[in-house]
């Protein structure tokens, strides 16, 4: 298999080298890719959408139909992961044992299913496979989370004027929650943001995006033609495009954030949602 793989990759490489010989020179300003379509976008973006970041303008306005289905792909990836891994029933042979630690003495006890804990406040539940980090890591992660989330919101809201946008901001927001899950344990974040809420928010993100498009359709123009939203947003048509891009980016951000949390919860607990990394 190694030899076949080597032959196939070398053949592919040889073909690519042969094709690359015909390419325009490296960083050539007059290459076909830079002269045919892109000058229009660079020169007209400010007039047509009033968004200085061309990437955001093209992503959420000119090519928004494409981006909408990318969001749908991310949503369905979260859904597929859920269907592949999530288990609600246990096998007959497995009995669930939970581990508790006595906070004062550090003694760990194991409770089999059907038995109950002695009535005391001094026990905390711990994972059997994974020991959560110490106090310093927990506290510093907890203090960092609000700042990371603030930065994520800034990245979403300021995507018009600086690098950023829904995808990046959503991933940063999701990563802040994942960091909380790593420094504490999985149950902490499931208490804060439940599985049902994650799934609903993921769908809501896609709905915000497609709903904006459908609203344009209802107002009598093409799907995702944001000019028509001017009477609803109470601004002139040009500013309406800029504001509608923000709405769409928020939808993308919500969908991406919840998909990341959903994927992480399913992967790290192998679908059991009881304990994990």
């Amino acid at each position: 298999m190694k030899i076949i793989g080597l032959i196939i990759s070398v053949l592919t490489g040889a073909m690519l080298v042969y094709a690359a010989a015909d390419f325009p020179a490296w960083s050539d300003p007059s290459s076909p890719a830079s002269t045919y379509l892109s000058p229009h976008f660079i020169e007209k973006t400010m007039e047509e959408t009033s968004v200085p970041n061309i990437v955001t303008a093209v992503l959420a306005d000119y090519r928004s139909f494409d981006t909408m289905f990318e969001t749908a792909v991310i949503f369905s990836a979260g859904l597929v992961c859920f269907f592949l891994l999530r288990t609600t029933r246990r096998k007959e042979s497995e009995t669930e044992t939970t581990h508790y630690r006595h906070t004062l003495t550090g003694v760990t006890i194991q409770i089999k299913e059907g038995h109950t804990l002695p009535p005391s406040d001094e026990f905390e539940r711990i994972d059997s496979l994974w020991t959560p980090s110490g106090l310093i890591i927990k506290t510093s992660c907890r203090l960092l989370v609000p700042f990371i989330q603030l930065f994520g919101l800034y990245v979403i809201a300021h995507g018009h004027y600086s690098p950023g946008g829904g995808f990046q901001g959503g991933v940063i927001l999701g990563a802040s929650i994942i960091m909380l899950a790593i420094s504490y344990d999985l149950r902490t974040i499931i208490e804060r943001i439940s599985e049902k809420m994650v799934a609903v928010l993921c769908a809501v993100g896609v709905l915000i995006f497609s709903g904006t498009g459908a609203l344009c359709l209802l107002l009598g123009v093409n799907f995702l033609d944001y000019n028509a939203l001017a009477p609803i947003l109470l601004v002139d048509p040009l500013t309406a495009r800029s504001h509608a891009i923000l709405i769409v980016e928020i939808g993308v951000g919500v969908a991406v954030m919840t998909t990341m949390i959903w994927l992480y919860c399913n992967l790290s607990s192998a679908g059991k949602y009881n304990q994990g990394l």
Partner: protein
Amino acid sequence: MTDLVSTIIAKYNYWIYITLMMIGLYAMIAKNNLIKKIVGMSMFQTAIILFYVSIGVKKGATIPILEYSHGHGHDTQLVVHAADYVNPLPHVLMLTAIVVGVATLGVALALSIRIYDRYNTLEEDEILTQIREEK
């Protein structure tokens, strides 16, 4: 001869991208471990994204964010020259490809966790042996 050498030196980026693609493809075909195969898939994907982004590079151009003046652009007519800014279109296409890439990575890892639950190994040959024994 000097022509050939100067072509090779002028396009050194492309040769390295092709090397990365070959490494990724080889790992997808020849590696025995499923996680290693997934790493190879991601490397192949990033090599292609790198190639696309490099198409948009222009000599002497800056990042594709226009100089912003207050008043939302329509009362101050901004004169923009296309040659001053990097081609933004490959960036847009590849930005979404990266995020979709991580979503498919999640699905691939979920599949490998399922396979591990069933066969208790991630090695391809051991899984195939177990499948043959079951028949």
